[in-house]
């Protein structure tokens, strides 16, 4: 920090400099540029510059039929692609009043929760790498490989899934998948305990994250931040409970919330969500009914004119699709409201005056995926 004497020596000289956390940076989680005006080690202003991976999905939505846009949804947030699939197909199902068979709904929930777990494992690994712990990545990806193998057998993809269809899912699961998923659930719980003992309870990690980057519930509301960000600030907001969809109302799970609002709170919310996802998967597997996996869908999709919304709780927060239809077989407007966009918008205000490593710890705890911001 500059002392008054320094300014007296060179009056009028601005002692701050601009540090570019450029689009290529190990901690930027993708192509995000943050222009940081620094005073020594302190961040005076952090201005995110986005758009480096802007692919204009919303315009693509206006040039494809309703079904042709479906693969796009998996590419918006590649880590939790099934949630994004879900929001889009459910919005069209809402418009066309398509019935989805129960088995398909349960399969959607089971695979979505598996996707949530694999997304959180990537977040956890990347966050710890930011903080200097390079080893947990290898352990988390070991667990994630099992999930990816299970999902690949069913959906055909490892990352950018396009598994859901209008009216259900396109592929039924077999006995191997059910067995494998139960085995994964059995094996993952002790791993969670190991992660808690070795990493979460580590004093160095606790000192890095406790009381760092406080975000109040009011700030979350004003910026529209959702997901673990708002749940780490004490507000139990989860789209699965606020606007219940699919078969979530029938399943018994908690919404983990922490009151502190610091980075540690968001971290603990993420870790608790892993446990809750395991619960949901178990219940889904127990209650999976028999039946078809694809409902009756008209041959040509022409939703009636008007606008329709559907929101899901993606791994990062509230993802909402707003469709405007004019009765044609091509959407008139597809609006994608992504969680990382709103979550990052509060970074500028909350990172003022923080030291650089703490600002990066805050940014990591927001769980950003840059293609989610840029679409």
């Amino acid at each position: 920090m500059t002392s008054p004497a320094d300014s007296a020596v060179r009056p009028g000289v601005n002692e701050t400099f601009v540090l570019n956390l450029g689009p290529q940076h190990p901690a930027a989680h993708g192509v995000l540029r943050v222009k940081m005006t620094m005073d020594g080690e302190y961040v005076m202003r952090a201005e995110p510059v986005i758009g480096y991976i802007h692919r204009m999905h919303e315009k693509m939505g206006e040039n494809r039929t309703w079904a042709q846009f479906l693969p796009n949804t998996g590419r918006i947030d590649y880590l939790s692609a099934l949630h994004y699939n879900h929001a889009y197909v459910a919005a069209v199902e809402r418009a066309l009043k398509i019935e989805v068979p129960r088995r398909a709904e349960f399969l959607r929930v089971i695979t979505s929760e598996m996707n949530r777990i694999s997304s959180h494992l990537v977040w956890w690994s990347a966050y710890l790498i930011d903080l200097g712990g390079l080893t947990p990545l290898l352990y988390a990806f070991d667990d994630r490989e099992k999930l990816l193998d299970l999902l690949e057998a069913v959906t055909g993809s490892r990352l950018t899934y396009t598994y859901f269809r209008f009216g259900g899912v396109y592929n039924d699961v077999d006995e191997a998948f059910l067995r494998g998923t139960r085995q994964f659930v059995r094996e993952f719980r002790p791993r969670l305990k190991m992660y808690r003992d070795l990493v979460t309870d580590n004093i160095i990690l606790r000192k890095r994250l406790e009381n760092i980057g406080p975000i109040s519930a009011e700030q979350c509301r004003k910026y529209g931040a959702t997901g673990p960000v708002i749940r780490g600030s004490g507000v139990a907001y989860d789209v699965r409970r606020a606007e219940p969809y699919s078969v979530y109302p029938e399943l018994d799970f908690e919404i983990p919330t922490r009151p502190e609002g610091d980075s540690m709170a968001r971290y603990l919310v993420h870790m608790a969500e892993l446990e809750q996802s395991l619960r949901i998967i178990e219940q889904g597997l127990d209650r999976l009914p028999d039946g078809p996996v694809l409902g009756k869908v008209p041959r040509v999709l022409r939703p009636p004119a008007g606008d329709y919304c559907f929101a899901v709780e993606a791994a990062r927060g509230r993802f909402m699709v707003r469709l405007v239809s004019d009765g044609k077989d091509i959407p008139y407007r597809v609006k994608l409201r992504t969680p990382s966009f709103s979550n990052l918008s509060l970074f500028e205000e909350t990172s003022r005056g923080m030291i650089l490593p703490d600002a990066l710890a805050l940014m990591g705890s927001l769980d950003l995926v840059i293609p989610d911001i840029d679409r």
Partner: protein
Amino acid sequence: MNPTLDQLCEQFGRLVGTVPVPSKPPVPTASSSVGPALGLPVAASGEGRVAGPASESGAGLRPADQAAKMAAHPPPAPTGPIQKTDHAAKGYDLDVTVAPTQIVMAAEIMDRAGFGLDAITGVDWLAQEQMEVVYDYFHPTAPGRVAVRTRVPRARPEVPTIAAVFPGANWHERETHDFFGLVFAGHPDLSPFLLPEDATFHPLRKDYQP
């Protein structure tokens, strides 16, 4: 319907005024200017008349052409400025239509009721020479989703900014400006956000030629 939404209906009713929206689009006369034909509030009068979504473009087009355009892009049928909708059918519970000048007051009503800003969507109704801006709000602790919409003429797409009420709107409005060219009056910085810094085009307009 839960009490929060009922209170909101009441507050919006006071904001919007009890003047009903005409259910049929008014026939344009040759001498009318753009403003009254669109049903937008004229600055001098300062009433709370709302912008009906069913208004059409200004004078100049023959009625037959207008009818043909309307058939190609049928607008949703207006049933009133404040409409309770079925969440299962639409995804939101309350649909409010206000004039562009009332947007900030509508945002303040939502802020006082404890809602958070979900999204700001622009829609380009080329056939009706209007642009629509839809503000979606969600409530963190109570059920209820509200959509507030407004329409502006395409020739002068200006809406006041709500960034003072909801700081999160700053980014949403910047993005909507990028895509549509909608000018949010009072916004601190409308430079290109997702598009390159030197972009002068607005891709989501229906008449955009790449």
